[in-house]
């Protein structure tokens, strides 16, 4: 069975049908459709970070570099006033981001622990200042995307990206596909070796595995998906700016991953929705929302030792 945990199956059966039906009830209110879309996009980004942190044990504070890069890359390679094909550019952006990740990962993955956090942060800050200080990239204000891509495959087009509901469904599909992709990856032999490396690198190397190569491949995969999320975000709002690259973006994603339950992948979606839900509710209640938000996150992290997913699994799973 692809989703071998009961909790994960419950989550999928609850979340995706609900998410499929929700726009039907929100037809009049595109604000909520757009809001949910942006949360789903970020959840996709958090999922890619969750794989790195939770499954590979690679703690990075520079993952947002790829999120921002996804947006900037689109601006760089797509013609300004022409609708390009969404799928073709998805491929281009993921491939370029993967190539960048290959080079950066080659350097970053020679370190570990606190040093890796510092180096990933350094790379992210370098990229952040490069884009925010470059006039040709719009500086602090960023850049506008004037024409959204078209999504036809063999002449058939299912999504109109200017339509918020269509865009919502595209992001929902992306989220589902990414979840399935990660589950397949984890179940594969590659995924088992990555799990073994996370548990004990020395023992895994003694089984004849080049742990550096496995970590590098994982880093490349997660970075390409992180860039895909950034590309979606840029298309949704029609702009890209340096805040996407900021280390605080990586920091928030890390909090969401921890909150959801590191390494569970579907927990990343839970964590993002809970975090964003709290954010949205509290900021409308009080101007000191950050204080309450912080307190709630501390409480949840202390209560749910392995995140929300971990807590739910404790309640629902019967271990063999």
């Amino acid at each position, binding site marked *: 069975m692809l989703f071998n945990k009961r909790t994960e199956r419950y989550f999928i059966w609850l979340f995706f049908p609900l998410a499929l039906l929700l726009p039907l009830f929100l037809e009049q209110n595109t604000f909520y459709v757009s809001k949910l879309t942006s949360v789903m996009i970020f959840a996709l980004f958090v999922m890619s970070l969750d794989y790195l942190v939770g499954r590979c044990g690679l703690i990075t504070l520079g993952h947002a570099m790829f999120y921002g890069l996804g947006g900037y890359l689109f601006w760089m390679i797509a013609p300004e006033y022409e609708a390009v094909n969404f799928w073709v550019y998805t491929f281009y952006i993921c491939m370029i981001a993967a190539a960048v990740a290959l080079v950066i990962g080659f350097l970053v993955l020679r370190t570990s622990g606190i040093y890796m956090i510092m180096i990933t942060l350094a790379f992210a800050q370098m990229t952040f200042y490069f884009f925010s200080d470059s006039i040709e990239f719009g500086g602090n204000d960023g850049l506008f995307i004037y024409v959204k891509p078209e999504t036809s495959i063999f002449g058939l087009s299912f999504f109109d990206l200017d339509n918020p509901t269509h865009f919502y469904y595209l992001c929902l599909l992306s989220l589902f596909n990414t979840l399935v992709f990660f589950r397949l990856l984890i179940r594969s*032999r590659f995924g*088992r*070796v990555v*799990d*073994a490396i*996370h*548990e*004990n690198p*020395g*023992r895994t*190397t*003694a*089984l*004849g*595995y*080049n*742990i550096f190569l496995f970590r590098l491949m994982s880093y490349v995969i997660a970075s390409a998906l992180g860039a895909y999320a950034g590309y979606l975000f840029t298309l949704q709002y029609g702009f890209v700016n340096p805040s996407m690259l900021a280390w605080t973006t990586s920091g928030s994603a890390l909090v969401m991953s921890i909150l959801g339950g590191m390494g569970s992948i579907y927990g990343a979606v839970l964590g993002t929705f809970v975090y964003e839900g709290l954010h949205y509710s509290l900021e409308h209640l009080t101007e000191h929302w950050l204080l309450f938000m912080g307190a709630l996150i501390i409480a949840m992290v202390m209560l749910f030792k392995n995140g929300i997913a971990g807590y739910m699994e404790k309640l629902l799973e019967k271990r*063999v």
Partner: protein
Amino acid sequence: MTKLLQVKGLHTYYGESHILHGVNFDIQPGQAVSLMGRNGMGKTTTLKSILGLVPPRSGDVIFQGEELSELPTWQRMRKDIAYVPEGRGMFHNLTVKEHLEMAARANRNGERNWTYQRVLETFPRLQQRLSNLGTQLSGGEQQMLAIGRALVTNPELLILDEATEGLAPLIRKEIWQVIRTIKESGISTLIVDKNIQVLKELCDQHIVLVKGQVVFSAGSEQLMHNLTEVESYLGV
């Protein structure tokens, strides 16, 4: 006959502590070799130096005529060496099935004599525990899995570190029987253990380490002749 493994003048340090003082020995193809010594004499360090887990400062490790000293551990293991570490080395996050699946590979000649299925036939207990996590097994089952995980890599040389330590007598007997089967199948073995009674029958060659030096290296016959001397080295 070409030697399978040659260990020449290994000097290994932990920081400033000089642990191995020029360890030398050879293993012939198909041989079972015992490595004995009291605790702290450098047995595990010798194994780790061969595998590159603790790189020696000087000395050579030559396997099937190929110098391994400059290679990282994972490349050495790909030359068809397998290691069963002391303490079994289970992965907490993998099931029995996943342990075997992730480790399985053909040897350098493309042969797969030891398959997932053959390991389960050799250790029927594991068959009933396929979906258990590595840590949800008894000590004996963990040891069987550790040996099975090493066998599915189809090695030419199997290195076992304290494979029977801390096990109940019946399980121990079972493990020794399996090691005999492995030897009979033509795989060379380097066995670190304290049970001289079993080792003298099972192994063709015996090496005794005292303070990081080889003080005795001979065949079983000579071991029997010098049993008192060897036992004094082992503190038996």
